[in-house]
């Protein structure tokens, strides 16, 4: 397993280097264009400063921003005992030293993500829709997948990759806007123009159009492979690939679209939140591999080890393996999961749903009124009427 983490580090390094090169090139071309001949160095400096500021912001605030953009609430064991239990189990299974903080997002679309700079201060967030929709085995599969992202240090890599891509996009857009408004070179053009700058201008335009696309492609290439590895790890942690397979299926079939997701945060979720049902194009270019493929690989594993996943991956996709060699050698095939799922008592999903809702009613400042006829009324804080009627028995409940 250690080589896998080392491989991720090497890949992080390569990724950061190629994206940094792109950023530098963009800065140089922009500098040559806007600052005149010889201004390339200044442009590179500007690009580096933008990147540094964004990286520092992400390093110190990234997970906080991410969690607040997504509207996540930190929860404690008393709020969601089952979820906490599962996170504790998977912390042990993943061999993490410290349990990640647990967050819940009030959103009917089932989804989940992990974030944080280091495994030591990671956070795992799930939506209320996920808690309502999944049974325990499925929830365990999803949490295991997120824990794998934490353990494999994917979250750190994606944070940096996202910042670099973001810096490139911002610089390119600013540059293009500057050109559009006729900045920079207009003066030197009046002066007859320097020959060397013609090339720089052309390069600048091409780079400003291509760089954001390249940055995203680098980002996607890395994030897609992470997903397969996290699926393989989740199967190994839970020793029950069917849990995650069934969860992925349920999540992908849910009709709701996640409200708090943007294209910047999309790769952090277990399933691409921006993809709409039946939108095939997203499968080819998205940050996440096609879901039906992920499900088929998990279902064809036979066992629950990395070897089983790798073999299944080759069979289903027809491509080369996806799991690093050392993980295959060290882990070996794991015995098929002996988990008689139907024997377990079926989780009471109504109780589950009410537990999730109760938490957000408390958070949202709702008032609870118990009616004598057996109904419970929940009154939102911005309720306009001074009384509320129980529809069942007709009692008017005074709210003043």
């Amino acid at each position, binding site marked *: 397993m250690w080589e896998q983490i080392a491989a991720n580090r090497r890949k992080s390094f390569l990724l950061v280097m190629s994206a940094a090169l792109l950023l530098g090139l963009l800065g140089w071309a922009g500098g040559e264009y806007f600052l005149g001949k010889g201004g390339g160095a200044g442009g590179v400096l500007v690009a580096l400063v933008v990147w540094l500021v964004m990286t520092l912001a992400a390093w110190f605030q990234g997970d906080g921003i991410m969690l607040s953009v997504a509207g996540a609430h930190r929860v404690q064991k008393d709020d969601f005992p089952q979820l906490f239990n599962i996170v504790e189990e998977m912390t042990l299974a993943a061999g993490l030293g410290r349990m990640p903080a647990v967050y819940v997002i009030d959103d*009917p679309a089932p989804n989940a993500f992990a974030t944080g700079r280091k495994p030591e201060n990671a956070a795992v967030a799930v939506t209320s*829709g996920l808690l*309502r*929709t999944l049974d325990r085995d499925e929830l365990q599969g999803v949490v295991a997948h997120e824990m794998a992202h934490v353990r494999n240090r994917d979250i750190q890599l994606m944070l940096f990759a996202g910042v670099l891509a973001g810096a490139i996009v911002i610089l390119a857009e600013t540059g293009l806007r500057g050109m559009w408004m006729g900045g920079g070179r207009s003066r030197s053009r009046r002066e007859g123009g320097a020959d060397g700058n013609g090339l720089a201008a052309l390069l600048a335009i091409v780079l400003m159009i291509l760089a954001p696309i390249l940055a995203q492609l680098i980002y996607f290439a890395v994030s897609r492979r992470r997903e397969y590895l996290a699926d393989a790890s989740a199967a190994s942690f839970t020793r029950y690939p069917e849990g995650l397979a069934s969860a992925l299926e349920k999540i992908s079939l849910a*009709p*709701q*679209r996640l409200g708090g997701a943007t294209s910047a945060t999309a790769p952090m979720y277990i399933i691409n939140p921006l993809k709409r049902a039946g939108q095939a194009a997203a499968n080819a270019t998205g940050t996440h591999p096609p879901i039906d493929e992920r499900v088929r690989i998990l279902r064809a594993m036979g066992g629950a080890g990395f070897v089983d996943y790798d073999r299944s991956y080759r069979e289903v996709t027809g491509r080369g393996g996806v799991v690093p060699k050392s993980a295959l050698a060290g882990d070996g095939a794991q015995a098929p999961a002996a988990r008689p799922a139907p024997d377990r008592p079926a989780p009471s*999903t*109504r*109780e589950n*749903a*009410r537990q999730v*809702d109760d938490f957000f*009613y408390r958070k949202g400042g*709702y008032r609870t009124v118990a009616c004598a006829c*057996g*109904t*419970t*009324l*929940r*009154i*939102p804080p*911005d*309720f*306009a*009427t001074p009384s*509320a*009627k*129980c*529809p*069942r028995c007709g009692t008017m409940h005074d709210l003043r």
Partner: protein
Amino acid sequence: MKCPACRVSMYVVEYRRIELDLCAACDGVWFDRGELDLLLGDEPVLAQVATADEPTRACPLCDRPLDKVNIGPGGRVLVDRCPQGCGLWFDRHEVAELVADLDDAAGGLPPAVREFLAEVFPAKGGK
């Protein structure tokens, strides 16, 4: 959640661990997809999409215009359904019509939904 008809905050009524969103201003009822699932499992709500001169409402969750669908006895009751599957919206009189005569064929609306509505909104003068 805001009422798709009056745009004011709705209150929630929970009965037998199932929730409905009610509008105090117009007495309309939102039956959320998540709650329908809790009641029905995977059984779909089948209904014919219809056209009507009733005002078009927007889904309180995804903001898409709601489809008009015919359900209930003889397909006569026209309710609103989110095209994305977020839930169902019943105007006040629609709930009353649906629960007025439970022996009538339900026409697309699963019996469990109708029975649940009848329990929460007992027909006037009924049991």
